[in-house]
């Protein structure tokens, strides 16, 4: 895109012109750098460099404190494939993805459709239903661990008071319930964002499509399947991919509510890696685990965006 003016004669005049042009060019480069560099440097120091470091660490054997690091090649990755807890954590991440998709996507879409039908007070409901998403995950985690408390938590107190004592479980303490219980808390914390995306998507649907369907005598369910869902394709794609990515990255709620327990029953890759690095001092091993997680997330994100660009 650079414009080059041919230099015909190297007389004094044009040398001066070239000089001042390079000066101008340098000045322009400095100006552009002054806009870009502060941001890019911070980004490089705290994201790009650690990213390279993560890959580097994963090829060594290092406890985080000793001055020397032993190069071990792919040994950490080989160990990971033999580590039952790591594999279990990956499985839990997958389960977490599936449960989140089930709980999050369709119910939130139905809620969005209901809100979009409101004539007066739409803003009130949108703001109200978004409220849980405003809270920090620390608040959500502490709040829900009290809600699930086997003795004093409101769920069990309520179940006991209506005589369903047998249904009152130790929600975060039993292998069968712990992950679903955590996913419910996480759904509560995150559905608000998806609700807003769906509402924005619904707003852009051509209303005349519904009128035409009305004339054809289509019922509400047929209209939902034949008009709403296809028109929301892009929004649905975005929401589904965000739900999956969130589920793969989950950490704070699990750490606050169960720390991966009981007996690794709710361990995700992120919590396992955190423990391995900061309480077991297996720094390079943990980093290898986090690199695996990072690759899964990045690969998914990139291929999803590629797919979306191709289909749009």
């Amino acid at each position, binding site marked *: *895109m650079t414009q080059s003016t041919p230099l015909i004669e190297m007389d004094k005049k044009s040398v001066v012109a070239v000089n001042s042009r390079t000066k101008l060019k340098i000045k322009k480069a400095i100006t*552009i750098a*002054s*806009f*870009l560099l*502060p*941001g*890019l440097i*911070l*980004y490089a120091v*705290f*994201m790009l460099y*650690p*990213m390279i*470091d*993560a890959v580097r660490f994963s090829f060594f054997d290092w406890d985080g404190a000793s001055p020397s690091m032993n190069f071990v090649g792919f040994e950490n990755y080989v160990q990971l494939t033999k580590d039952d807890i790591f594999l279990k954590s990956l499985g839990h991440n997958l389960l977490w993805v599936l449960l989140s998709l089930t709980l999050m996507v369709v119910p939130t879409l139905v*809620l969005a459709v209901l809100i979009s039908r*409101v*004539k007066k*007070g739409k803003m009130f*409901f*949108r703001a*109200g*239903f*978004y409220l*849980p998403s405003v*809270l*920090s995950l*620390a*608040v959500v985690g*502490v709040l*829900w*661990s*009290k*809600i699930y408390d086997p003795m*004093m938590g*409101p769920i069990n107190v*309520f179940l006991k008071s209506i005589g369903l004592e047998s249904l009152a479980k130790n929600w975060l303490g039993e292998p069968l319930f712990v992950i679903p219980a955590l996913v419910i808390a996480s759904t*509560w914390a995150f559905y608000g964002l998806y609700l*807003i*995306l769906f*509402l924005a998507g619904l707003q852009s649907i051509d209303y005349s499509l519904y009128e035409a369907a009305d004339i054809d005598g289509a019922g509400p369910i047929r209209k939902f399947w034949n008009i709403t869902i296809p028109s929301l394709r892009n929004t649905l794609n975005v929401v589904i991919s*965000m739900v999956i990515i969130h589920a*793969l*990255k989950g*950490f*704070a709620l699990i*750490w606050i509510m169960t720390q991966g327990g009981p007996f690794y029953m709710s361990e995700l890759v992120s919590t396992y*890696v955190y423990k391995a*690095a*900061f309480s077991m001092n297996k*720094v390079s091993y943990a*980093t290898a685990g*986090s690199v695996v*997680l*990072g690759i899964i*997330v*990045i690969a998914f*994100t*990139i291929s999803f965006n590629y797919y979306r660009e191709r289909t749009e």
Partner: protein
Amino acid sequence: MGTRLKQLKGSQVTLLVTLSVLLLFITSPIFYAVLASFKSNMEIFSSPFSLPKSWNFDNYIGAWNLGNFKTYFLNSAFITIGGMVLVALVAAPAGYAFAQLTFKGNNLLFYLVLLGMALPVQAIIIPIFFQLKSMGMVDTLTGVTLVSVGLALPFSIFLMRNTFRDVPKELRESAAIDGAGEWRTYWSVMLPLAKPGLVALLIFTFMNIWNDFLLPLVLLISQEKFTISLGLYSFQGEQSTNFGLIFGGTVISMIPSIIVYLIFQRSFVEGMASGANK
């Protein structure tokens, strides 16, 4: 026609009732926490769903003093405000350069920034800790602020680039003809036009940093440096059986984000939708 109108009104009423009941049910954990924060342990257990017998603030006072929530609050405020200022000062000019200035490697550099949006923090948190350690900034509020800003930058630059792309280039060119330098044009002509995007960015940054848990957990060690999220987490560990106190702390931790949300509700929600859709 008359019956049709009645039908419509009738269905609106059913809809409103359904949604109100649903809203009450979904937000009930918040109400539960607020009610419980005024109760004693005994009362929480015996009557969890009723209004408190008296509105006493003991749990709040207890959490504020005993639980050091005052310190946590100030620490969070420092990190969050510092982070917001820094993000705005650094991400807006970069987004502007990507959107408005022509230079070699613009696209390539921008892809590099986009990579950061896909990269999960969990993948790099361990090296971040050791890097900050080598810089002597583990267990400092400045360290957490800088890392928070670094991690927030990809999305922030992306958002500001989108904002500045909607500003017509002719404005910049006509300012240049008037003899204004690039930075002057930026401050006095372009930035004011990007105000909605900038407001969205500041709200995002506030929510992200104020509510963050992972970075403070990994990067802060001593209790007097804890942020409000980390403080609440450690408080629940210390007072695990004292429900009243914990709910006091929980409600204290909720208040700032709810206030910011209520004030900026509209630009908040719209920023969310536009940011994620692009």
